[in-house]
């Protein structure tokens, strides 16, 4: 049965209002913590380290009062790709990945198929990493409004403005782009429904139907583009009539201030990330 309500499965980028500890943190704190955690995740390949990182990421989700099931729902559309990539890594990547903590033992070798304990580890670690990154990236947008997020980014990039870096402009572009995602999602849903109402076969019948003819796509893309241009023109008019001139000398309604809890959160995460990076090859498994 067709289902037009795909916003139900898009969970990254959706702000969930709450008053949790994580919601109240300064957006710059959350961005910093995300960067620290991502670097720890990227450089750790051992089972132990990744389980620790998964537990910590999970703890952040619980602290943020975001339902774990909600974030996992966002993973669902990607599952076929994850399975496909894992299978490729498992079967053909055995000779190339050597885990630093353990010797790699060949399990199966037949023609080009080469499964080792190394490739098994690679698959498991990749999956764990994917979950960690999904939890954290989703969490940042689930607990931070777009306005705060972009103000945070702008404020973090501001020191670079001295060297001619367009901090304000970039954060404005990011704000507009992020703000338009749900709008286009809704508009796409309307266009899909309208075209289905006059006989178009829109919703894919099978889950794996990626290929659609250009003709079928045009039915959706042309109306969507026209709508996008119309909205962009409206936005330009609205900005112009409010005398928008860009970044220079512009004050902000939202003033960001670090609170003690922000300092503590950043300090703890810095220590944690450094420990995880320094001892990345010392974990037993």
């Amino acid at each position, binding site marked *: *049965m*067709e289902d*037009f*309500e795909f*916003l*139900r499965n898009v*969970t990254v980028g*959706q702000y*969930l209002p709450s008053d949790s500890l994580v919601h109240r943190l300064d957006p710059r704190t959350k961005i910093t913590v995300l960067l620290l955690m991502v670097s720890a995740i990227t450089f750790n390949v051992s089972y132990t380290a990744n389980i620790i990182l998964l537990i910590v990421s999970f703890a952040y989700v619980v602290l943020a009062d*975001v*339902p774990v*099931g*909600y974030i996992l*729902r966002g993973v669902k559309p990607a599952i076929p790709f994850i399975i496909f990539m894992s299978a490729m890594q498992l079967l053909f990547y055995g000779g190339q990945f050597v885990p630093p903590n353990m010797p790699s033992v060949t399990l199966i070798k037949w023609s080009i198929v080469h499964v080792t304990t190394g490739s098994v580890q690679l698959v498991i670690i990749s999956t764990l990493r994917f979950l960690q990154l999904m939890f954290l990236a989703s969490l940042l947008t689930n607990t931070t409004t777009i306005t705060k997020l972009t103000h945070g980014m702008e404020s973090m990039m501001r020191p670079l403005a001295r060297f001619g870096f367009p901090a304000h402009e970039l954060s404005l572009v990011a704000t507009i782009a992020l703000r338009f995602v749900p709008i286009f999602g809704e*508009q796409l849903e*309307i*266009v899909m*429904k*309208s*075209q*289905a*109402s*006059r*006989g*178009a*076969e829109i919703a894919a019948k099978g889950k794996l139907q990626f290929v659609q003819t250009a003709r079928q796509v*045009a*039915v959706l893309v*042309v*109306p969507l583009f*026209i*709508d996008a241009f119309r909205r962009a023109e409206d936005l330009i008019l609205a900005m112009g009539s409010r005398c928008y001139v860009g970044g220079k000398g512009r004050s902000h309604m939202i003033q960001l201030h670090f609170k003690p809890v922000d300092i503590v959160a950043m300090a703890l995460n810095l220590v944690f990330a450094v420990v995880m990076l320094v001892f990345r090859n010392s974990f037993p498994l």
Partner: protein
Amino acid sequence: MTVGEPIITVNDLRHTYLRGSPLEVEALKGVNLEVYRGEALGIIGRTGAGKSTTVQHFNGLIRPREKGKVIVFGQDMADPNIDVRGIRQKVGLVFQYPEAQLFERLVGDDVAFGPRKMGLSQAEISERVRWAMNSVGLPFEEFKDRFTFSLSGGEMRKAAIAGVLALRPEVMVLDESTSGLDPRGRKDVLSLIRKGHDEENLTIVFISTNMDDLATLVDRIYVIHDGRTVLSGATREVFAQPEVLRGYGLGVPQITEVMHGLKGRGLPVDERCVSVSQAEEQVWKILSS
């Protein structure tokens, strides 16, 4: 008008958007209604009351998954194996800003999209396109080769309606399809719907927040409030209860309001008038007695 079997039956329908997420919204909490062949039916309610959600069940854009039953032309819409394209051909749905569905370069091609998808012969397709365009007031010969996106707003609206009409549906559902048009455009669209109803025996389901439009077009009205059908009856009967309607954040046609005012000042008029001509008759009666 309400004779025979209903062609659409909705029974205790419920629907929740973003089900199972922290953002879920219970849009329908118990909608009951019936659409009979050949009638012109109105559905009114405030923004967010659940009107659009309800009518999107009529052609299977939303399927009943929770409690409730929707039967359209004898088919249970909860059954995943029904011929939903067949239903969509019988129940034409026009959205609030239908011009958002236009995509072809030429107006004629866009109107032909539905019939082509039905797999009709070339002759049958051009016959339908000609008929649909003529009935919405875009003469076929003059408009078929015009660029779609060079049309005016009102003409785009008509072209989009023609695109649904070309399916030759038995039921035409219009979801606030007159909003945002200038008075002339609105009058044109209303009269083409009226004409389809009178001449082609088209069943009409008309959603609107404009009570005057409704009064001129529909025979029967359902009021949906907060996801439930709370009131139904002949247009005159529904508009005879302005206090109840006001309680739901709705109003009555201006002329009905005038008649209620006259009655309130002690004139012996029948206040249930929904059109100017009915009111005129009443006023004449008093003046001549």
